[in-house]
């Protein structure tokens, strides 16, 4: 996202061709005001230019929103196209030994695979926009219903991992800056480096061996059921959350440290030092606000990872989340499920990065308070 921004600039003349390829789809589902602004062509051009001069901040944010929506449609196209291009076929996998041409043909007809590609894409996209991802080919259940539960579980896990790891990472980063190149900094560095270097399944198994098997203080497997209470769930996810925290902590911590250190060498930090301020006040009040943008970016990246990239952790801890669901669907070529998971993952990634971009824009005093 961040890389896309500058090229597409605020000037409407460059924005229209950039969004050009996406316009047919965008028009087909017209509804969002953002898409409408992008489509208004020449007339909107002057309006947009006036708007971006008068409210530069709002213009930048609207532009980011527009780009995100455009990107999401591009991704939907790629997911659909990619799944279409996959070798193998649900019908043959499903029928196995008894795959006669006639049976395969019947199943394909059943699933509507005989319709043209464009028609299937638009009906899928139209459904997806209303929250209906169709029916699973394998289980014949509604995909949305199944995903809803799984997504809830994944977000539950990600949420707790995030509220522990983000403050911890930023706090440790600041601590490392304050004691830079001294013992606490070195300890934080080595430990976090070790945690990031070990693959997550290994960290997971070590935690299981230690806490579930040896000391018996944690629950394993971490499977959660509908009937479980909140506290029961919490104790069930303790180990996967710990694993995830260890995995994402180092990245955010090191980025915080680097960003703040970079700011620490600036002239205004010297000014703060020459005002006789305490070390912690210098870091928290004078360095941190100027290091926000890179930190927000790395936090967003890790949040996205927590939602999207936890397949391995879910499998290790037998946790019924989105990742495991998608892997299962891929093995049986259950395309509606694969597409739905892909689109939801992409949406999370794009949304989080967009949020990071917008927050970084808001954190810049030059944009927040124009001359």
């Amino acid at each position: 996202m961040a890389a896309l921004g500058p090229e597409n600039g605020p000037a409407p003349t460059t924005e229209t061709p950039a969004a050009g390829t996406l316009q047919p789809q965008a028009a087909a589902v017209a509804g969002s005001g953002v898409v409408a602004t992008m489509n208004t062509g020449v007339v909107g051009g002057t309006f947009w230019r006036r708007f971006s001069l008068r409210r530069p901040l709002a213009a930048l944010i609207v532009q980011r929103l527009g780009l995100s929506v455009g990107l999401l449609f591009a991704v939907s196209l790629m997911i659909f196209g990619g799944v279409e291009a996959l070798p193998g076929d649900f019908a043959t996998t499903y029928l196995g030994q008894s795959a006669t041409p006639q049976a395969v043909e019947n199943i394909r007809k059943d699933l509507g695979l005989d319709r043209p590609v464009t028609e299937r894409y638009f009906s899928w996209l139209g459904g997806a926009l209303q929250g209906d991802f169709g029916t699973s080919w394998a289980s014949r259940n509604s995909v949305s219903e199944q995903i809803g539960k799984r997504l809830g579980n994944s977000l539950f896990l990600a949420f707790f991992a995030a509220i522990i790891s983000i403050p911890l990472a930023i706090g440790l980063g600041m601590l490392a800056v304050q004691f830079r190149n001294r013992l606490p900094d070195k300890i934080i560095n080595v430990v976090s480096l070790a945690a990031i270097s070990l693959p997550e399944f290994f960290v997971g198994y070590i935690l299981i061996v230690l806490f579930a098997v040896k000391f018996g203080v944690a629950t394993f497997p971490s499977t959660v059921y509908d009937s479980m209470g909140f506290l029961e769930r919490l104790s069930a996810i303790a180990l996967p959350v710990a694993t995830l925290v260890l995995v994402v902590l180092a990245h955010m911590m090191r980025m915080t440290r680097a960003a703040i250190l970079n700011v620490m060498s600036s002239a205004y930090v010297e000014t703060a030092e020459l005002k006789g301020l305490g070390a912690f006040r210098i870091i928290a009040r004078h360095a941190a606000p100027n290091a926000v943008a890179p930190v927000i970016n790395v936090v967003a990246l890790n949040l996205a990872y927590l939602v999207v990239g936890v397949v391995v952790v879910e499998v290790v801890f037998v946790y019924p989340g989105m990742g495991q669901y998608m892997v299962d669907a891929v093995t049986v070529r259950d395309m509606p499920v694969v597409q739905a998971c892909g689109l939801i993952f992409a949406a999370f990634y794009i949304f989080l990065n967009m949020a990071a971009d917008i927050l970084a824009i808001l954190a810049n005093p030059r944009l927040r308070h124009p001359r």
Partner: protein
Amino acid sequence: MPDLLTVKNLKIEATSYPPGEPPKTVTLVDGVSFSVEKGKVLGVIGESGAGKSTIGLSALAYGRGGASIVGGEVLLNGKDILTLGRGGIRSVRGCKVCYVAQSAAAAFNPAHKLGEQVIEASLRHKIMSRPEAEKRALYLFRVLGLPNPDTFGDRYPHQVSGGQLQRAMTAMALCPNPELIVFDEPTTALDVTTQIDVLAAIKHAIEETHTAALYITHDLAVVAQISDDIMVLRYGKTVEYGTTQQVIEAPAQDYTRALVSVRQTKRDEAADQSDKLLNIENVSAAYGNGFKVLHDVSMHLPKGQTLAIVGESGSGKSTLARVITGLLPPSEGRITFDGKQLPPALKGRSKDELRQVQMIYQMADTAMNPRQTVRDIIGRPITFYYGVHGAKKTERVKELLDQIELGDRFLDRYPAELSGGQKQRVAIARALAAKPELILCDEPTSALDPLVAEGILNLLLKLQEETAVSYVFITHDIAIVRAIADSVAVMHRGRLVRFGAKSKVLSPPFDDYTDLLLKSVPEMEIGWLEKVLATRRMESAGN
């Protein structure tokens, strides 16, 4: 009664760690002693690298970069602040001693409002309550002549101009009622017309608050206006130390004498200025975003003479140079060279048209490839324009090195192994290598120390006599214009204010802007600032 600040035998060293080599220790300051009385101003003057800032920061027990104070005493009210612990030093900084940095634009935190930053030290050191501090900040904004003092504190650093920021920084230093303020080149980065305002504001504020000050600068004329005593430094050692009057009017040392007389080069203008080697006719130019930076500018330059273009930053003088070189094609008007019209854009010009006009930049550092030797840097245009290679090329490079008074031993050096003045000389040789008719000099001396700059100017004049090359000399320094120009063009906000022979342009009757510009240039004369301010007051009273 003891002096407020007494520094005895100060010795400051810096350790650098070049990769792959043993650590190197350099002595920055050696055996410097001085003292400042309550309410007095000591001017500290010297070239870059003389250790001025390092000495100034020692009054706050601070070492910038790897610098550390290894010997001597810094007595504040009779107490050595170097022996205080961390907490003790913190209670001195921002409370008893405050610091004003050269670049206020970098020294203010972009994330906070100016007002908050100005009163921060006063609040953190519990010198005053928030309402008291705010009241004092308001008072200081008024004293320093900032616009809309009531709301000035609510602005962010990027919302005010450079001159205003510098004054806000002074307000920040004055706010906690310190006993001593260290001013580190507070007006160097400003235009002359802004400098005089800031200088007057600082002087007024010091008098008003009875604060003592260390005033660090490389400009003797500036320090003469503001200080009671002057200390001249060179290579980290004291050269001369005395009252302002004695140092300016009867310097005892050769080095100080050289500094005092540095602006006294003068050259008479050519009598006949009718020739038009370069003729700029009604040129206007705009940048890609439609922002117009030059409005209908016309001037000309005779062969073998020097045209000085003066103006403040933003006046369009560098843009005019870009238009002449073809880097920025003009939107209107035309440029003729030797009677023929130059194609507006760089791409349309022939190799010979390119050869005729060469350029020297302000920052010689960034205008040279750091990975090429002097031989390659000067040799490149020789090969490019004349197709000369091998021994012949080396011969020509040596000849050029002789011309710029450097000699063969510089052939295989890299730019990093040259001093600032030597780099600028190499840049001149590179321009000369093409045997151009015209050299555009874009502030070639403004990043250099006065004595080095003097050397470069003399070299340029010598080369003009030898090769009859013409110069367009862009500068903001009237003293340089007086020294070397034949004709002068004064620019302001993209328009030509005044153009003609030097004697005409620099003598009355003046237009308002040229008058302001000329009167703002500090002169090496005690009491000059008061005189200028007094005339200004009389004029405004008369109006």
